[in-house]
């Protein structure tokens, strides 16, 4: 089926003329129509626009001028501004916001001929690990526990709609953003590959801001090689983002073929969580064995400040969010609730426009930045952040990459962990440290647990060394031979 192809295979087939971009897009448009009402992976579907883009791709292919992603159907996380297409950030406050401009990352994808099927659901303002905080409804994970077709699992978050859409074969790839794990954790929960590149590798311009010193766009796909193709298009210097890095974009696809012979792979001992399920523990050991078999040396390392990562994150990210989200004031764009005076207008607008989790985080951020508490909370957190980076810097003096689990567990059911914000936050215990350090990290599916749900392994690399991350991830993908498919997917009766 066309919807089961990888991007790499489809790009080759389009060039050979095995099928047209229009046919490929139509197959995915049909899949979206059939399954999105159930999965709710998209907030906004742009089928007509997608078919027009597909026809333009066919013309470019015929003329021999096609970009690397010509005719490839993608989902765009609804955090990327798309010119003329509603961009909500999963929030009521932006329910009717239509950006007059295109984000740099999506502009790069369009330059290379990609087709956008729509805007993918997400936790509100990317704050969440389950996609349950979206103002546009929950997303169903297309994977099911063996023998339990009833239980609705979460796709992870915050890029939950992106992950569900790729897993269910509604699209071939998707963009996400990762602030503390928002690409890697949903990739793990949905059996996908997903990479958060080094902070600065992809432009943040036109991406609705959550925590600016952490936010980083990246791709999802069903294979490591497809992620390499997508990241190669998305990445690149952008003068409009002051933290964009002015480095050439390497050939990530070529890096996937490097292998790991002679590499040193670190195992951080602090990532052995007390309550890690046996299947996760076993997969981690298996992953290390795969790398050993491929010629890598496995080395024990220590990242002593790991256990402070989450607490540091839950000071730094809300602090930055409280500042970034100050712009939603009911005056210049977005929802407005009337008030007798300006303050009342602000307060009513923000109370009505933001959901509970966003309000909580704005208030935590406001508090840790407020007079008298700034040093005790925010400044201290920034110092601990420096220590977390130092841990990674010292580890990368001994090893070329690290291998860890992506998340402590497989996907959980909708409604679980909802009463206790901290239980939800603990999902990100293994992904947050790499975010705090700004280093690249990828989740790659390694196998299934006893309930038939995918588990992910995380490969963490040195700053700007996504190439090694891809090389290691590809070896894991090849060894794992992960071929399981979700219960709900295009072409399978739901």
């Amino acid at each position: 089926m066309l919807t089961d192809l990888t991007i790499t295979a489809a790009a080759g087939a389009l060039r050979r003329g095995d099928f047209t971009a229009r046919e490929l897009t139509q197959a995915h448009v049909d899949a979206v129509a059939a399954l999105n009402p159930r999965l709710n992976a998209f907030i906004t579907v742009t089928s007509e626009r997608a078919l027009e883009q597909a026809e333009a791709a066919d013309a470019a292919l015929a003329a021999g001028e096609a970009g690397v992603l010509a005719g490839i159907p993608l989902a765009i996380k609804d955090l990327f501004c798309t010119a003329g297409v509603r961009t909500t950030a999963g929030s009521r406050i932006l329910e009717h916001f239509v950006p007059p401009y295109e984000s740099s990352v999506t502009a790069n994808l369009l330059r290379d001929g990609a087709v956008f099927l729509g805007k993918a659901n997400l936790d509100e303002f990317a704050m969440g690990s389950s996609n349950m905080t979206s103002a546009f409804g929950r997303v169903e994970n297309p994977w099911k526990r063996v023998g339990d077709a009833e239980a609705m699992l979460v796709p992870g978050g915050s890029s939950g709609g992106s992950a569900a859409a790729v897993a269910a074969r509604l699209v071939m790839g998707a963009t996400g953003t990762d602030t503390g794990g928002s690409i890697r954790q949903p990739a793990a929960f949905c059996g996908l590959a997903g990479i958060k590149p080094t902070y600065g590798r992809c432009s943040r311009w036109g991406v609705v801001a959550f925590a600016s010193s952490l936010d980083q766009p990246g791709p999802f796909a069903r294979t490591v090689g497809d992620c390499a193709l997508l990241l190669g298009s998305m990445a690149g210097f952008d003068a409009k983002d002051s933290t964009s890095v002015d480095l050439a974009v390497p050939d990530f696809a070529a890096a996937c073929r490097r292998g790991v012979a002679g590499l040193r792979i670190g195992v951080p001992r602090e990532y052995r969580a007390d309550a890690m399920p046996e299947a996760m523990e076993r997969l981690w050991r298996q992953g290390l064995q795969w790398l050993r078999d491929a010629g890598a040396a496995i080395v024990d390392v220590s990242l002593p400040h790991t256990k402070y990562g989450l607490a540091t994150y839950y000071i730094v990210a809300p602090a930055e969010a409280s500042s970034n989200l100050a712009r939603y004031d009911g005056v210049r764009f977005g929802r407005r609730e009337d008030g007798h005076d300006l303050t009342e207008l602000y307060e009513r607008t923000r109370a009505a426009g933001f959901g509970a989790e966003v309000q909580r985080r704005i208030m935590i951020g406001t508090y840790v930045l407020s007079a008298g508490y700034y040093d005790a909370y925010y400044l201290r957190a920034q110092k601990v952040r420096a220590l977390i980076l130092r841990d990674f810097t010292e580890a990368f003096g001994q090893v070329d990459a690290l291998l860890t689990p992506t998340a402590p567990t497989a996907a959980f059911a909708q409604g679980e962990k909802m009463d206790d914000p901290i239980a939800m936050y603990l999902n990100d215990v293994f992904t947050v440290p790499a975010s705090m350090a700004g280093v690249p990290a990828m989740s790659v599916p390694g196998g299934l647990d006893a309930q038939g749900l995918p588990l992910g392994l995380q490969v963490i690399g040195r700053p700007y060394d996504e190439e090694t991350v891809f090389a290691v991830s590809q070896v894991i993908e090849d060894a794992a031979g992960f071929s399981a498919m979700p219960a709900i997917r295009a072409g399978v009766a739901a």
Partner: protein
Amino acid sequence: MSLDPATVRRIAKLARIRVEAGDVGRLQGELNDILGWIETLSEVDVSGVAPLTGGAQIVLRLRADEVTDGGMAEAVLANAPDRVGAFFTVPKVVE
């Protein structure tokens, strides 16, 4: 450091989020749980450590201080919830 109801109301005021009287207690509990949890950072020895503000390897660039963009009032105003001509509107601020 535990928040009392008055502090919760003060934070909400600073954040410009209206909190109904009946919600203060719930918010107080949630915020205190989170603050109690992040309290673990107080056990880290950070003496002599310089704070890290952002991406580790980033050196912010300078550019010439010149106008590079503009002249797009319509695009800027396109999403305004209320406008008069080329202006955003707000409730009367000065009596």
